[in-house]
């Protein structure tokens, strides 16, 4: 059962970057699973490898990166063995991403309509099908309808001719519908605007809409609420929760903010120094954190609902990735470090049921 529902499986992924200062060992054997329809929160501080993991899955690593080893199984196929062209097609159809800063990723000289219609026009067959369905059933086809066609795409065989104009109109109607789905205020008006005319929250919604337009099965959201204000962050998190029930996708939500992950994720994976150090369900990880890093991290963030006099800080700093510490990469900052921790890297093992942790204190 569990096996069949697994969408993505990352096995012992190692990624390095060549830089003029030396080899940056960004990922040091990452293991991660993503199941169908879940939101996985990928949490960690800057430089821990969250974004590199996402970029590797998407095949978007920069030129100076090289993959030392590992597998990324997406529906059983190894993405690392695919050609750049195949990955590109896969990115068009199945893998969607939204990054932190929407202004960098939206085309500044095209209207939102042009950019969004373009995405729908990639699949003219689908649009034709939608037009036919609309004609035969006599009611408007919405984006939610199209989402439900995903698995059983039966082309209704009719002799109805569909003109190019009708297809275009369909694409535009779907755009409006999709923008409404992501709670864009005044969707029709937004279509004729340029990205610079939108506010930060609206741009982020436009990006989410574009990512969803192709009905992806894997959705990677990389720090999507970092650049927006708290009230807008609350709106976007609310939207993501709503969308989870509507779209048939698994989501990886990358964030440096444990509180954001607590609000939205079903499961949380904590990363440190290029490794996943702890994975479990959100409730379990907050109730019963096992890894010393997770424990200390939770005591280091202020909680409005449970104020403390003094925060517990973690001594030392985030490790240098050119000369990372030997063994467990957390050992120089860990108050419980043993000799073994300095020599060997602990494996991610199941400690309690459905709660994996990479620490010799707990297991191994």
């Amino acid at each position, binding site marked *: 059962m569990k096996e069949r529902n697994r969408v993505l499986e990352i096995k012992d992924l190692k990624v390095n970057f060549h830089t003029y200062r030396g080899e940056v060992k960004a990922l040091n054997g990452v293991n991660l699973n993503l199941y169908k329809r879940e939101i996985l929160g990928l949490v960690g*501080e*800057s430089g821990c490898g969250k974004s590199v993991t996402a970029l590797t899955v998407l095949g978007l690593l920069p030129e100076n990166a090289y993959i030392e080893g590992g597998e990324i199984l997406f529906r059983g196929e190894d993405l690392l063995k695919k050609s750049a062209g195949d990955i590109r097609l896969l990115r068009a159809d199945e893998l969607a991403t939204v990054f932190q800063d929407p202004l960098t990723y939206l085309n500044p000289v095209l209207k939102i309509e042009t950019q969004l219609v373009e995405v729908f026009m990639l699949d003219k067959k689908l649009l034709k099908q939608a037009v036919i369905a609309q004609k035969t059933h006599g009611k408007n086809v919405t984006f939610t309808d199209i989402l439900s066609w995903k698995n059983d795409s039966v082309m209704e065989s009719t002799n109805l001719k569909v003109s190019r104009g009708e297809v275009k109109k369909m694409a535009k109607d779907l755009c409006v519908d999709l923008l409404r789905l992501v709670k864009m*205020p005044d969707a029709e008006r937004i279509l004729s605007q340029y990205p610079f005319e939108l*506010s*930060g*929250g*609206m741009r982020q919604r436009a990006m989410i809409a574009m990512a969803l337009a192709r009905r992806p099965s894997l959705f990677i959201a990389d720090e999507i609420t970092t650049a927006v*204000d*708290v*009230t*807008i*962050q*609350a*709106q976007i*998190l*609310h939207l993501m929760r709503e969308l989870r029930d509507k779209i048939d996708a698994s989501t990886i939500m990358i964030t*440096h*903010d*444990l*509180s*954001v992950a*607590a*609000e939205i994720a079903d499961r949380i994976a904590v990363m440190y120094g290029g490794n996943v150090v702890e994975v479990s369900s*959100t*409730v379990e990880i*907050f*109730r019963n954190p096992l890894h010393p890093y997770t424990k*200390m*991290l*939770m*005591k*280091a*963030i*202020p*909680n*409005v*609902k*449970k*104020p*403390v006099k*003094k*925060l*517990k*800080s*973690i*001594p030392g*700093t*985030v490790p240098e990735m050119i000369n990372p510490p030997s063994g467990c990469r957390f050992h120089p900052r860990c108050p419980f470090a043993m000799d073994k921790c300095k020599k060997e890297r602990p494996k991610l093992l199941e400690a309690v049921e459905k709660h994996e942790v990479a620490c010799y204190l707990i297991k191994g």
Partner: protein
Amino acid sequence: MEDLLIVKDLKTWFPIKSGIIQRTVGNVKAVDGISFTVRKGETFGLVGESGSGKTTAARSIMRLIEPTEGEIHFNGINVTIAKGGNLRKLRRRMQIIFQDPYASLDPRQTVNSMLVEAMKIHGVTKSRNESHERALKLLNKVGLSEEHLYRFPHEFSGGQRQRIAVARVLTLNPDFLILDEPTSFLDVSVQASVLNLLKDLQKDFDLTYLFISHNLAVVHHMSKRVAVMYLGRLMEVAERDAIYDSPKHPYTYHLMAAIPVPDPEFEKEEVLLTGDVPSPVDIPPGCRFHPRCPYATDKCKKEEPILEEKDEHWVACHYNIDFKSGEKKP
């Protein structure tokens, strides 16, 4: 408690110029009439979303930007009209720590020369030896050691740089510090240690803080009293717990409900604010929050409410709203 800083109707507008003769066609009303007092020894938190004017307010108080209107009194001295030597004396007593420690330290100066230079300019110490000793003492105080004294900023991490910025400010023996987002560039595990350091220093050096941040949880952790700013105006000022647990202004209420809680089992009310912050160039008439306020009436569209006090709790709203039932009384 004694009032250390009194800000009265402070306005800082930036003119928008256009055309060949550069006529002023409008104003960005970044700070549009704020009044508050900071009491000696307390940490006064200033929160607000981006573009609400927090940083402009801070810089205007320091006179790094000239305020358009209003008065600022520091310990009985009018900062707004201070000049030359008097202003320099004031600057020694009130200092500011900026958000980005990568930009606020001179990359070509060693830590030692940075610290000593500040003392030299303000004549805090008599001799070179004394300066050196004081620099070393303060460096220890912020958690760095002698070996760091002759290094350059690029050799330090973000957290260490912010510590150096704090040490540099302390060389002048100030009474009052403006902390403008001091930890937003830092990682969470480092943020905690800098916040703890700031708390310790406040006790040791008898400091008063104006703590500015968009991170509501951090402000909650640090402050005794909190002011909420929206589009250049203060919406509510009160004791920390009153602001966070029983807010009176609808904006504060929504802002507090939006704070993510690091506890998945915490039952949160789902109250969302619609829309975005309007542009500070054309501020909505009446109450500037009315386009986003679910409780807005015709009165709110016409009349701008003023910040009124009741039991040490200042609110700028025409109504007294019970957020649970949605009932509102004038």
